[in-house]
């Protein structure tokens, strides 16, 4: 085990600095807009660093590395897909520009402006469900990472994760978006350094020939060609392209950066510049996974997740390991803080506050949001400790995200760019979009008892892709059939003049 007192010192100093900065930012927050969207004063540099930090957690590194371990170099096609998706959203401003023009604080607010209040409540609930289910495995993956990289047992990891959640919860609850953004910035800097050092040591640990040999021996040609790889293939590529396009334009923690931007143009620039890093965000940890394959071949299922952290624990010297663990903790904290705030603000503003009929004051909404930050934190600990990991973490993350993104892509995309989109179409899109991912999650648990004719329903590539098709079909058919009974609301003037 390489973990020494120097590594501990680095982590303690770093955590102390993060808490101090998070609490320092709290004194600048005076109202709800300051709390949820940082007073809409985030510029390109800060917006870019915090968007990347939010989307780069330990969980991301873990499932990307696992993919590299299981699929070899072929997995790296995912990095190219995600670069294309975010670049497209940044260049076109698809959805994010419209939402920023409408000055909404959460995505479901759009549903009420364009459709109706009940659509906003259903959209908010689905977003909350998909988001918290998606976030459920974060803690578990972080636990696996820490236990193997630091060389401790799983019981110590649970304690570390609880402490980390308390730290993140505290500054997120009290400081809101500005604390999140300030600490994200710090975390981004530490994480970037940690990733650079790790990559240098990974290159020193094995030769390219050794890596190529390991991929060839373990995976054959499917370790190099994504189109012939059984886990990947065309259906995976199309599903991932759609999912990442939807996530880029709709995933609340990321979109919060566009909504916090000082102008719609700044929001677009933040996305365009950030997209340049998204290939690296996937490909760098995938390469670590490939290096781990050459050092620890033959691991399957949940064990395959431990290959990369085991490799890091073995190849990184004292001090560098401390920087990387601090960087990983940093990455997790920035992801947790943004996600906690995003899901807590959705359930509070878009569901609870509406059920009270707008009678809650801004201060009460802020306090309820804080309570939800704490509740989601408790849920994360329980889910992380009790849930059994799926074999392919990346697909779990995307399929749970699809519960919301598949329907929302149609409800919001058509809502912004198709005049005929109406209330019924939005209901249909949200519900039909969620059917396939929920069916997948339920059926994959009883896969062994399913008749062979229904096994195709447990294929995540199919379920994910089908969810987008169903969502779009629901919107188009629902809207066209009910144009007279439910005339669409025209928001063209709001998009032109702003709210």
């Amino acid at each position: 085990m390489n973990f020494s007192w120097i590594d501990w010192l680095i982590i303690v100093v770093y955590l102390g600095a993060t808490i101090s900065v998070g609490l320092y930012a709290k004194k600048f927050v005076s109202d709800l807009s300051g709390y949820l969207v940082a007073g809409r004063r985030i510029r390109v540099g800060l917006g870019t660093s915090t968007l990347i930090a939010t989307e780069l957690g330990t969980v991301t590194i873990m499932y990307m590395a696992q993919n590299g371990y299981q699929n070899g170099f072929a997995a790296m096609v995912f990095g190219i897909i995600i670069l294309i998706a975010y670049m497209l959203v940044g260049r076109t401003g698809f959805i994010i520009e419209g939402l920023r023009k409408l000055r909404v604080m959460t995505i479901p607010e759009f549903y009420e402006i364009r459709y109706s209040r009940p659509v906003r409540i259903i959209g908010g609930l689905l977003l909350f469900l998909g988001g918290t289910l998606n976030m459920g495995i974060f803690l578990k993956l972080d636990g696996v990472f820490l236990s193997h990289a630091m060389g401790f047992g799983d019981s110590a990891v649970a304690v570390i994760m609880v402490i980390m959640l308390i730290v993140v919860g505290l500054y997120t609850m009290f400081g809101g978006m500005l604390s999140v953004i300030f600490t994200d910035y710090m975390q981004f800097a530490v994480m970037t350094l940690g990733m650079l050092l790790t990559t240098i040591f990974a290159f020193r640990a094995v030769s390219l020939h050794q890596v190529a040999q390991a991929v060839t021996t373990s995976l054959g040609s499917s370790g190099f060609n994504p189109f012939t790889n059984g886990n990947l293939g065309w259906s995976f590529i199309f599903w991932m392209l759609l999912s990442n396009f939807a996530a880029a334009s709709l995933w609340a923690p990321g979109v919060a950066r566009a909504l916090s931007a000082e102008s719609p143009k700044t929001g677009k620039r933040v996305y365009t510049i950030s997209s340049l890093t998204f290939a690296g965000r996937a490909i760098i940890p995938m390469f670590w996974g490939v290096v781990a394959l050459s050092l620890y071949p033959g691991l399957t299922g949940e064990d395959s997740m431990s290959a990369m952290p085991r490799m890091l624990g073995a190849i990184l010297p004292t001090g560098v390991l401390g920087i990387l663990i601090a960087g990983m903790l940093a990455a997790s904290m920035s992801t947790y803080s943004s996600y906690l705030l995003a899901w807590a603000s959705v359930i509070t503003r878009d569901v609870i506050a509406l059920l009270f009929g707008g009678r809650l004051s801004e201060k009460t909404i802020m306090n309820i949001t804080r309570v939800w930050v704490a509740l989601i934190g408790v849920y994360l600990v329980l889910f992380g400790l009790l849930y059994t990991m799926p074999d392919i973490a990346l697909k779990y993350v995307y399929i749970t995200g699809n519960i919301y993104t598949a329907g929302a892509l149609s409800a919001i995309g058509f809502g912004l760019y198709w005049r005929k989109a109406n209330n019924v179409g939005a209901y249909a899109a949200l519900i039909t979009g969620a059917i396939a991912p929920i069916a997948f999650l339920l059926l994959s648990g009883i896969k062994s008892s399913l008749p062979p004719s229904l096994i195709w329903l447990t294929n995540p590539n199919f379920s994910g892709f089908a969810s987008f098709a169903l969502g779009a079909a629901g919107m188009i058919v629902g809207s066209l059939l009910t144009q007279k009974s439910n005339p669409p609301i025209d928001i063209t003037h709001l998009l032109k003049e702003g709210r």
Partner: protein
Amino acid sequence: METVMTPTYIWIGIFIVSGVLFWGTAVWAIYRGFIDIMDIVTQEKEKANRKKQNTSA
């Protein structure tokens, strides 16, 4: 089984390009982000000072 080197070099090339984009953009964002943070802090301090002056006046 014969070790395949050509696709390895292609993927390592893609890895290097994505790495350069990642760390290059990161350095830029860290530099610009620092300026943005200092601006927000300065604005907030000025706001607090103005509030103080108004109260004492």
